[in-house]
């Protein structure tokens, strides 16, 4: 098997798409998208991005739903390390390259780190316009009126947007972007992040990016506050932290327990205390 699985031509094409994506923050770049040995919809876009940029010096972390140990994360990490010789870690701070599904790590990322998202639906306009040809024209004209109307209708009926995760954001005051299905809790972390954020959608054959220190704002009416998930007075039952996204876990007696969703954060909180 060749290094990082993909042939050099494929990697070159993907890197070119990534460069274009970085140059136009939030803009969706089309690419051919190779078939991976992992099923479509299971992170093939993130995988292709990761495999195209990974090298011997990298330290890799893979998370799925906040956890390094969940089946998909394990599977992808095993595959990447079987076709490269990189070191892997679960420690967010030690990782140079982090591939993620549906979460941004709790601990702030640093310059030089790259966060690769697995994206199921790359175009946020899909929620209001499923036809990709029409959506492309709407992006070109920065015509996001349909998203605003959706937001208005939801707010009038339910008091807030019904979109719970993959909440629409505006990147660098220009493109509306789908931030991958991260909870609203993570949306503010996209803004002015020190790390490079790359988004890969394999099935939909799209790549886009948010360069470090880029303005990313949720689509929101001026007189309405952006509300994130709220765990009120709950704390992690394992490490005791009150400042992280929590999973609700039901035990055999039907009692609800709360634990950190980011398992690495939970471990480090136990050891070192709160995040910086």
């Amino acid at each position, binding site marked *: 098997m060749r290094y990082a699985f993909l042939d050099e031509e*494929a990697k070159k094409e993907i890197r070119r798409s990534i460069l274009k994506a970085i140059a136009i923050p939030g803009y969706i770049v089309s690419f051919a998208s190779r078939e991976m040995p992992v099923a479509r919809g299971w992170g093939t876009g993130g995988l292709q991005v990761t495999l195209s940029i990974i090298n011997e010096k990298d330290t890799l972390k893979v998370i799925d739903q906040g956890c390094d140990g*969940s*089946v998909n994360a394990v599977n992808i990490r095993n595959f990447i390390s079987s076709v490269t010789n990189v070191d892997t870690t679960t420690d967010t701070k030690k990782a140079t390259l982090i591939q993620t599904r549906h979460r941004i790590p709790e601990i702030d990322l640093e310059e030089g780190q790259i966060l690769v998202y697995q994206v199921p639906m790359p175009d946020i306009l899909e929620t209001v316009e499923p036809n990709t040809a029409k959506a492309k024209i709407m992006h070109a004209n920065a015509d996001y009126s349909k998203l605003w109307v959706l937001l208005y209708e939801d707010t009038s009926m339910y008091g807030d947007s019904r979109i719970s995760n993959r909440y629409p954001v505006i990147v660098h005051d220009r493109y509306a972007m789908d931030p991958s299905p991260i909870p609203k809790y993570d949306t503010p972390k996209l803004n002015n992040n020190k790390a490079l954020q790359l988004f890969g959608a394999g099935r939909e054959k799209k790549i886009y990016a948010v360069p470090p220190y880029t303005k990313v704002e949720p689509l929101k009416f001026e007189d309405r506050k952006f509300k994130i998930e709220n765990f009120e007075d709950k704390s992690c039952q394992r490490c005791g932290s009150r400042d992280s996204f929590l999973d609700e876990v039901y035990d055999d007696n039907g009692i609800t327990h709360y634990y950190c969703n980011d398992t690495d954060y939970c471990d480090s909180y136990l050891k070192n205390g709160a995040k910086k």
Partner: protein
Amino acid sequence: MAYYAIKGGEEAIKNSLNFYNDYTKRSEKIDDEDLIESLTFSIDKVMSEGSLYSKKLASKSIKRSAGDLLNASFFVRAHRSSCQRIGICKELDVNDMRLSRRISSAFKDIEGGQLLGASNDYEIKLLVDLKNEKVDIKEYSNKDNVIDSALTPLRNDNLIKILPKEEEPWDITRVFPTSPYPRSSVLQVMSRGESGTLLGFAYTSMRGYGDVHPTIGDLRIGELDIKFTHPFTKKEVKIGSIEATAVESAGTFNKDENGDTKLTTGFGFCFGKNETKAISMSIIDLSLYNNSYTVGTEQIVASDFEMVMHHVDGIESFGFANHYKLPHYVTFQTDYQIFKSAKKYVEEQNQKDLNGALK
């Protein structure tokens, strides 16, 4: 405790895989040649949807997936990504096919005749042992049947609408196009598409969402030589041959860009023996490029480029459908929170309205 259960991924995967291998290991005992010679339509379906012409690899993938043909195509497709491309063969002309089967329902009598070949189309489908009459197939001629498409005379008479030729065919495996989609890319997507999906899309047209009851002008199965320019001698060399199915179907007539009235046709082509798929593909091609003759509503699936380009690939749709099996507790947690606060909001509003009405 449940918390630790979600962390046991590594071992769980290993156990599950071992269990699966044990569960399906008898398939390994099937000889590749036996499988290729006996379940030939499965092999051809996998090659066609996996978009890699190798009967041997198709056989291995069918065994690896214990007969799940979508999964088998996926094995082939993934393997394909690890293959280095060495070049591009010469253009193929389906008229050059050495035919093993060829039928036309448009003409009673065609040059070269109807060639039924091997088919069970006219068999009574019952699971009872039928008495097979002893037939000496050695009596049949094995001469190469190379016959032009039955629609060629009409084309020569300038009666058939011809779509503009693309300078350079698109290659969807290297760059995926955005709308407007070149025809070569549309045909490629369909040629690798999932047979059942193509059939479903084509059937919508047959049933009235598109007004197409096409006539099969020419359906053919046969062998095509693959020719290559030799890298050193620069001469044309034959490097092998493939079996393929090609269909030309004829639809209604239409005015072309010069105002001439022309008969419209659609084209289907795929690896192996895949008649239903090739017929479906030709009908969709016909509907896509002649949608001014459609009836029904504005939105006709078989005439919608976006629908076809983004929905007919089996590997993609099957993978995504199965991704629902992955954990989604973060997204569900957020859904649940939003739901609870929306419910609370609606109840408060209702209460306010009620109070207002009572006053």
